[in-house]
Structure formats: structure tokens, C-alpha cells
């Protein structure tokens, strides 16, 4: 009984330690679990993460390389660089960044590896990780911090800082993982998952990049402007939808996913009763019926420009789940 109590107490303390940890330490743990941060010891601990000190330019280089998903690549390729002050543990990373035009030294042969990294340097680097380019005019190096603020990469508490603390570094990294790539819907974390830098399970455990439903992703660029749809009846495979307003019947289609059919598929539609307004050519309906087999169905009603094979998607309803 004593043993059980001790075990319970130990577990309780352990859990409460994690839950009570600072946001910085939680961010560090997220990165550690994803393999994007290693720390100075073999196991994760506040001591090992050394969040209360400033980061060096060498550490910044390692972190940026990992955030690009190139940790393993850098170690395999062992690219040369011209700098004489880079420690051995950072050399592959600086080499990879140098070869890919992502870093320069403070001089032709001096990198400044042990110098304190600045928030501005790190913001510029992380903007590049997200696909922004100062060379292409997306941002100016001089105003990298304010640009980073404008896209949510940093918050205002970091804006006024000059030196980069490791606590800020991990926060910025976690922010970056949850941001979309330049002018895209796709998140950095999704890209890294796709490139097998970490698994989707690890990302889910870290609470990153919540999986968007295939239907939502499929029609992400389409504005939602159709009447709201709801299920009015569901018998066997036949599902009848009702709309809260009139829906112009021409070009209406229904797409779905199900447990049996996880890819987005068009369902055959039987339109409900169509009515016309005086002097109007268009017909309207308030219901339609679709036949969709299987379980765990999600569906969406879309309005398209044609009833033929080629069409534009003009609008969409809400996603209906059964």
C-alpha cells in the first residue's frame, strides 16, 4: 500500500510538473518531441534546454536547419564552408545553410559562431523557412521583426528585444510550425510531416496542424455562400438535405467522404421540387436527395457553373456530418 501511494505520488508530481511548466518549456518539449530540438543532455529537462540564456549564431544555424527538415541531410552531406570559427558540432549545419545560400559569415572566413544571435537574424531566417524571400522583396532584412509580427511569427513582447534568448527561439519555432507557408493554406508542420521529418502521430501528440477534413481542404479556396444545409431524413443510403433558403438548382452537386471512400467523391443527386419566381428563368429548390453508401459520411453541397463534365465551383454550403 505504501508502495502504491509512493507510485501515485510520483506520478502525480510528474504530471503536475508537466502541466505546470512554463509556456517556453512546453514549447521546448514540443520541439524536443518532434526531434527539432535536442538540448545539452540526453533527456528532456529544463536544465538541458537552457532556455534562460541567449542563443549563439551556431545554435541558431542548427535550429534553422532542423526547422527546414534538413538535420539528417546536413549530417549526410557534410557541406564545406569557409569559416574557421565554427565548432565541429555545428559545422555540418552551417555548411548546409551556407551551400544553400541561407547564411553568410560576418566576414569571408569568420562566421561569428559563438556570438549572440539576434531576434532580427532569427526572424529573417524563420521567414525564409516559411518561404518568404528578402531577395524577392517579400520583406526587408531591416524590418524582419515587424514583418514577423505582422504574420504572427512573433508577438509584441519579443518585438523590442535585441538578443535572441533560447526561450524566445523555441516560441518562435512553435509559432512557425502553426503558420501557413508563404501565400499558401499549407502549414509548415504539414510540409514537415509530408517530408517525413516527423510523423503525423507525433504532430498530433504535440497538438500541431490539426487534420483538416478532406472536404474542407478540397474546397478551401471556395467562399461559403450557399444556404445552410441539414439532414432532414436518412434511410439506408438515401439522405435528404433541406436548406434554410432557396437554392438555385442549376449546377448543384454534392461531394462526400465516408469510411469506405476517404477521397472526395461526387454523389448522384436527385433534386427536390423545383419552383420558379414570376418573370424569372432560374429554378429553385429547398431540398435534394443523394445516395451515399457507408458510414461516417461527411458531405458538402456546391454550386457549379455547368451540369457537364467541365465546371467551375462557384459556392459551397456548410459541411454536413452523419
Amino acid at each position, binding site marked *: 500500500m505504501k508502495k502504491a501511494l509512493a507510485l501515485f505520488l510520483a506520478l502525480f508530481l510528474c504530471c503536475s510538473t508537466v502541466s505546470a511548466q512554463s509556456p517556453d518549456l512546453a514549447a521546448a518539449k514540443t520541439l524536443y518531441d518532434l526531434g527539432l530540438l535536442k538540448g545539452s543532455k540526453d533527456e528532456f529537462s529544463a536544465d538541458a534546454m537552457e532556455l534562460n540564456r541567449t542563443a549563439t549564431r551556431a545554435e541558431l544555424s542548427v535550429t534553422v536547419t532542423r526547422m527546414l527538415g534538413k538535420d539528417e541531410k546536413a549530417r549526410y552531406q557534410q557541406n564545406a564552408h569557409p569559416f574557421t570559427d565554427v565548432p565541429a558540432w555545428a559545422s555540418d549545419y552551417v555548411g548546409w545553410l551556407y551551400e544553400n545560400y541561407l547564411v553568410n559569415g560576418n566576414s569571408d572566413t569568420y562566421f561569428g559562431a559563438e556570438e549572440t544571435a539576434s531576434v532580427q537574424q532569427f526572424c529573417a531566417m524563420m521567414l525564409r523557412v516559411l518561404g518568404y524571400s528578402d531577395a524577392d522583396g517579400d520583406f526587408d532584412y531591416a524590418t524582419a521583426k515587424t514583418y514577423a509580427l505582422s504574420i504572427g511569427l512573433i508577438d509584441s513582447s519579443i518585438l523590442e528585444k535585441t538578443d535572441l534568448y533560447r526561450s524566445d527561439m523555441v516560441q518562435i519555432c512553435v509559432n512557425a510550425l502553426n503558420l501557413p507557408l508563404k501565400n499558401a493554406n499549407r502549414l509548415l508542420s504539414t*510540409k514537415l510531416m509530408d517530408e*517525413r521529418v516527423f510523423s503525423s502521430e507525433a504532430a498530433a501528440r504535440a497538438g500541431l496542424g490539426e487534420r483538416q477534413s478532406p472536404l474542407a*481542404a*478540397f*474546397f478551401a*479556396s471556395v467562399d461559403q455562400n450557399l444556404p445552410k444545409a441539414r439532414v432532414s431524413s436518412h434511410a439506408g443510403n438515401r439522405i435528404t438535405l433541406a436548406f434554410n433558403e432557396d437554392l438555385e438548382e442549376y449546377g448543384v452537386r454534392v461531394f462526400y467522404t465516408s469510411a469506405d471512400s476517404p477521397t472526395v467523391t461526387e454523389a448522384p443527386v436527385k433534386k427536390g421540387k423545383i419552383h420558379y419566381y414570376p418573370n424569372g428563368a432560374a429554378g429553385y429548390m429547398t431540398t435534394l436527395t443523394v445516395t451515399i453508401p457507408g458510414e461516417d459520411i461527411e458531405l458538402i453541397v456546391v454550386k457549379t457553373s455547368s451540369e457537364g463534365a467541365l465546371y467551375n465551383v462557384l459556392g459551397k454550403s456548410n459541411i454536413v456530418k452523419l
Partner: protein
Amino acid sequence: MKKLFCLALTLLLAAPTVSAMAPVLKYQNAGTLALWTEECYYNAPVIDDIDRDGQKEIVFSNYSITVLNAHDGSVKWKVNSGYDRNTPFAEFGLSVGHTWCDAIVTDLEGDGQKEILTLHGNGTVSVLTSDGYFKPGWPQTPLYGAGRSLKTADLDRDGVQEILVGYGVGNCDSVYVLNANGTVRPGWPQLAQAQEGKIGFSYGVFMNNLSATDLDGDGDLEVIAPTDLSFISAYHDDGTPVSASSSVFGNRYWGQVALYEDYHAEIRGDNGGWGQPINGTEKREELYKGEFGHGISTLSDLDGDGVNEIIVSTIMCNRKYAPVYPPSEYMTIAVLNADRTRFKSEALDADWTTLPTDLGKPLVQNKISLPSRVAQTPVVSDLDGDGKKEILFNSYNGKVHCFSLDKREPYAWPYSLTKRTSPLFEYASPVVCRDLDFDGKQEVIFASFYDEDQTLPGIMQGSLYILNYEGRLISKTPLPPAKEAQNKHNGVMAAPAVEDIDGDGRYEVILNTQNGAICVYDI
């Protein structure tokens, strides 16, 4: 037992080790003319015993078609393009143009006789006998336009091969199928003007893009035609279009599905695949589209189910710059199923519903040519002998990429020919994979060329590269300079041939160089 030991020892001694894999020049400038050198573009040399005398020949086609004795490089015969040996060879003024794509040596009619097929700059297709005379019915010029793609395939499985021809033209009827007797097959060319849009969209074929495989499981082969802009068409042997997966693409044909970086946008196919008009608010998913004018298709059964997957290279362009390309964003590859969906295999841990992205911009945003003169050719090989295939391709970013089926670039890949400190931009030819040292792992062999707009004092010649399966350099051997002193450049834009041409049990590398004709190395 003693005998077995001796045999093993002999093989071991004969096989070159990695450290000994330094190429040695065997001969150079083979097949050049007395007064000038014919430039070579993307046409790889073909090694074959075309006259069945037990000795191998090298066949290559530039402005003339040449057959060399492979063992010493001496000329067996040479004809001007568009002519045969009934017309005396002339160094000047007698040619129907250069050759863009590989010559083909094959037994066209299944009669035991090898033929030599070539395609030339004015659109002429030649079919020569193994001793250099036209087969009856040839040559033919079905279209006066730049001939860019030549393949053969027995589409209808009658034992006689058909000839697939692609033209770099500015309209939709760019793909022809000819019968072995020189007539154009009924139903071709495609797309017929009247069908444009109704069954697909098609424009020029600017590289050796065409291929043929059985897409619908009926035993006959279908023609796969990546063409300029974003569509890959597929046709039955009678020229009718092949349907894409109805459950994914609705009622669309292959040629009506534009390739987007984002698969959802591809499936949605807004505005017939062309995308909605640009208003400045679009996201990348709607903007990034593949370009297939230089989209070379390669076939391989990646998952071993008996059905070929289609691996096709593409240049990702940003629609916001359209219709004026370049700039372009990056070169990549797509892997497609026979029903035009993207390849995915849980057993192989392969998910190609997303593409490898952001592989690097071109070293030069060439104003004339989207691919910066690089023939981005996918090559499939099991490099490390683990039973899973890798996909390699050369890119306009100065690298050779190699992807495992899990879409990672393994080991030290990609290999960069152009380093940050390089004074010149250097590009790779298409690669060839061979187990040069017989250790069960493939080496990767390619040659290189420099950007012709860059000049430095001195001679600029590319190199012959051999990499190991991990993408690490084994050897880099500078090529001989151009034959003529006024040509500062020499390099190789076409794939090497790697064969044992002299029967010594070791491979040779045979290169069709830009400005020095055929050059051969012993490995």
C-alpha cells in the same frame, strides 16, 4: 571446388573496385567531320550489334546519322539526316536538320532485321536498314515542325511496332502515330483541332516526352503524351481519348486534368483545369501548376502489381506570371496511376498525392527556355538493392535528385554539381544506373555541361561523373575539349550509354558530346 574458387577469384579481380573506378579515355572525336563538328543536343548514343556480326556498333544522330565500330570508333557509314546511302554524304548543305532526341535501334516488323529510326529538325522521320538504306515507305515528314520525341511501341499487339512522334509546335496536333510502312495511322494526329477542349488540351512536345503502356488493362497500349502547359493526354491506339478515374475526376479524360501542385485543386479542376482568373487573392494551391512542354514520361511498375506507374517530370510554374513563362519555381516529378490519379501505396509507405516541392529554382531564369536546356529525365532503379525502387532526375537547379518511394531523398542525395563557390553553372545530363563493380548496388553515371551564356577565360568542358548509391562522388573526370578551338564549350546534354562494347567484361561509358561527337571511356 578448386575451379569454383578460381572463378570467384577471377571475377573478383576483374570487377573494378570503387576506388579503382576512374574512367580512362579510350577514344574521342569519333564520327566528327573533317571541316566542322556537328553539335549534339539530347540524343544519346545507342549500342547494338545492328548487323549481327558479333561486333557492337555505336549509332548516333546529329545533323547526320553515323554508325561507328564500337571497339575503335572508326566510321562504318554515315548519311546526312533525311537521306540514305544512295546519296553520297556531304559535309555541307545536305541535311533536313539536327536531331533532338535519341535514335532508336529496333526490329520494327519482327522480321529479325534491325532498323535505325531517327527524327529530325524539319519533322522528317527516317527508318534505315542496318546497312544504311531507307526501308520502303520511308522517309516521311508527317508534319513540317521541330521533331522532338520519338518512341516505338506495338500499340495493338500485332507483332509490328508503331512509331510515336512528338513535335514542338504551337498548336494542338502535336502527336502522331505512324505505321511501320510509313503511313499515318487512322485517328492521328492528336489532338485534332476540332477536338481541342472537348477531349483535352494539348500543345507542343518539346522533349522526348512520349511513352506507351497499357492503361486500361485491355492488353493494347495507350500513348501517354505530356504536352506544353499543364495537361498530360492519353490516347488509345486509334487516337480516341482515355478516361481518367471517374470516381475522382468525374467524366474527364486524361487530357482534361491539369496538374496542380495541390491535388485538391487538380481534382477540382476549376475552369476546365485552367484555374479561375487571377485577381491577386489566390493562394499557392490555386497558382502552382505543372508545365509539361518538357515533361518526360517514364514507365515503371513501382509496386509490382503488373501495372506500370507513370513517372513524369514537370516544371512548376506560378500562374500569376502566365501566360509569360518564365520565371518558374522548381522542377519536380509526379507519379501517376494508370487512371491518372496520383500514386499511393501503404505497403511501400509511398504517398505521392503530394509532390516533392521547392526543390530549388533554376540557376538561371532563362528567357528562352523554361528548363535552362536541361532534359529533366526520370530514371527508375533500385540503387541500394533493398527491393524498393528509387526515382532519379537531373534538374535545372544544377542537381541530380534521387527520391525513395517514401518521397525522401535518402543518404546524401541530392548531388549538387554547382556548388556555391563554383564559378560556372553546371548541369547534369540524364543519368544511367549500373552496378559497375558488381557489388549489388548501382552506381549513378552522368556527364555535365555548362551554361552556354557564361564565359570564363580558357576552355569550359563538362565532366563525367560516377556517384555511388548514396549520392557520394566516386570520380569526376573532365571531358576532352571541343574538337574545334573556336568552340569554348564541350559537355554532354544527352544520357550516356554504359555498355561493354569490346567484350572485355567491363563497362565502357559512351558519350555523345556537344562539340566533339563520340567519346568513350573505359571503367
